[in-house]
């Protein structure tokens, strides 16, 4: 089993909040649907080279916020500023392709690129290799497994050479080992391409390790910041419960510890926590 993506691995350093690194900046966003307030006073931003994760319980407005940030949904109030000429690669939460539509992976990859040079088969093969889906170019979309589909959708987004990748629940329908690999892949993509990544997740354990910043959403921004800070925030505990917060805090403790001593069995520790093993609980007490 591969190790989990780690936050502390060496990578390109990001300048602090300089304006030209800003990809998307939303301020005071409010959305009402059918008289019901879905989002109020939400501010969020993504800079290039960073991985930002949007977490929150089901129905907390995560996907709505993503749609606002993508420019698909107009907010009732607030502003969304995007870097001029921002290219977004978007991977939706669910992609169910009509069974009546015969579609190969290679053809699917052509959709996002228009008439650009990335149409070429060579480019498409290369990007499939980049996401670990090599050899699938002639496969049919309907035959793909959950993990393969996620990788292929990621490949389509990457073919656009995006400044910003937006991934809505990128590990949906992927088994637990596959999930770690996908998060690993996402971190690698950020490292090699330097693009900004905005992820949506309700899965906490794995995503916390793979992210630079967390925005915890429950119709408004409850708390935001580095993962270890967010998990200690009372607002986070309120939403996800003290137990989960404690587990995550433990997780980070172990995580840092193995890094310091530089050789502890990382996979073992991880399997303890991300499977929700109750044993992990006692570790921290």
């Amino acid at each position, binding site marked *: 089993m591969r190790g989990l993506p780690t936050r502390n691995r060496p990578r390109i350093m990001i300048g602090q909040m300089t304006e030209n690194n800003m990809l998307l900046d939303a301020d005071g966003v409010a959305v009402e649907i059918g008289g019901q307030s879905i989002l109020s006073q939400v501010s969020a931003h993504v800079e290039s080279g960073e991985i930002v994760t949007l977490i929150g319980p089901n129905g907390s407005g995560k996907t709505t916020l993503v*749609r606002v940030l*993508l*420019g*698909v949904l107009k907010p009732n109030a607030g502003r969304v500023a995007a870097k001029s000429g921002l290219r*977004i690669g*978007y*991977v*939706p939460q669910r*992609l169910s*392709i*009509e069974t*009546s*539509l*015969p*579609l*190969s992976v290679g*053809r*699917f990859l052509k*959709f*996002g690129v*228009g008439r650009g040079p990335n149409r070429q088969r060579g480019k498409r093969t290369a990007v499939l290799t980049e996401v670990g889906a090599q050899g699938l170019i*002639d496969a*049919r979309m309907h035959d793909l497994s959950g993990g393969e589909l996620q990788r292929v959708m990621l490949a*389509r987004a990457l073919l*656009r050479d995006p400044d910003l990748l*937006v991934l809505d629940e990128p590990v949906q329908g992927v088994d637990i080992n596959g999930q770690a690999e996908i998060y690993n892949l996402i971190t690698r993509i950020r490292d090699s391409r330097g693009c900004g990544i905005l992820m949506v997740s309700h899965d906490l354990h794995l995503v916390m390790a793979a992210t630079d910043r967390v925005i915890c959403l429950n119709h408004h921004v409850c708390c935001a910041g580095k993962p270890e800070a967010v998990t200690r925030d009372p607002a986070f505990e309120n939403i996800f419960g003290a137990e989960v917060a404690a587990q995550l805090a433990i997780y980070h403790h172990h995580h840092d510890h193995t890094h310091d001593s530089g050789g502890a069995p990382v996979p073992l520790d991880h399997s303890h926590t991300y499977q929700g093993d109750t044993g992990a609980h006692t570790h921290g007490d």
Partner: protein
Amino acid sequence: MGIPDFMLRAALAGAGVAIVAGPLGAFVVWRRMAYFGEALAHSSLLGVVLGIVLGVLPWITVLGVSVIVALLLYVMDRSKRSTLDAGIGIVAHGALATGLVLLSFVETARVDLFAYLFGDVLAATPHDLWLIYGGGTAVMAVMVMFWNPMLSVVVNEEVASVEGVNVTRTKLVHLMMLAVVVAAAMKVVGVLLIVALLIAPASAARQLSRSPEQMAILASVIGVISVIAGLWASYELDTPAGPSIVVAAIGLFVLAVCFGNRSVRSAP
């Protein structure tokens, strides 16, 4: 030559409609709009009657009513206030019934209702051919222009939108094309059988295709074969032309399901 002029015109009219109905029908299948097409078809009878009442060429009112109904259904779909399924049914049958009621008021009731319901392709005039090929060429040109965005919207609207496709415009363009083809197809197979001409060839083609483009072209080919086979049967066996064309299309679909399937499905 043993082929009478009226048969030749019928074949040309039918083939013209079938060629356009192929790719458009594929989109109807992909977007699950069969019932939607049905509503357009039913309401085109209202268009015919309005044409008679107002004393204008029927194709103008048919096209007008089709376009209005298409827009109405589109708005209903967007607002999501009522379930679209029931809404479509109300519009479809409301238009059909209103058309029939209006028809009873028309003094010169020598209108052949049967011809509108089941088609009258054997009576296709050169004027009809001009309409079919003029409208068909326009629809084909628009379809080629919008092919990729339309396909992208079929796969996923949200992603298409993020990637710069104007989803609303693309969907409206598709509906307008559908309205035009339904108006043209009424002459060939009639109000009640138009949808069959859209979805049967496309569904047959699905069994034999590996790409959307293949499916669209094959659907046209299968449609044209159905028209020729149906007309042949009509000529030889004296069966009604429109229904014969549809029976031929359904027959080809059954053949495709029985024999086409395996090679496409068990590909590596």
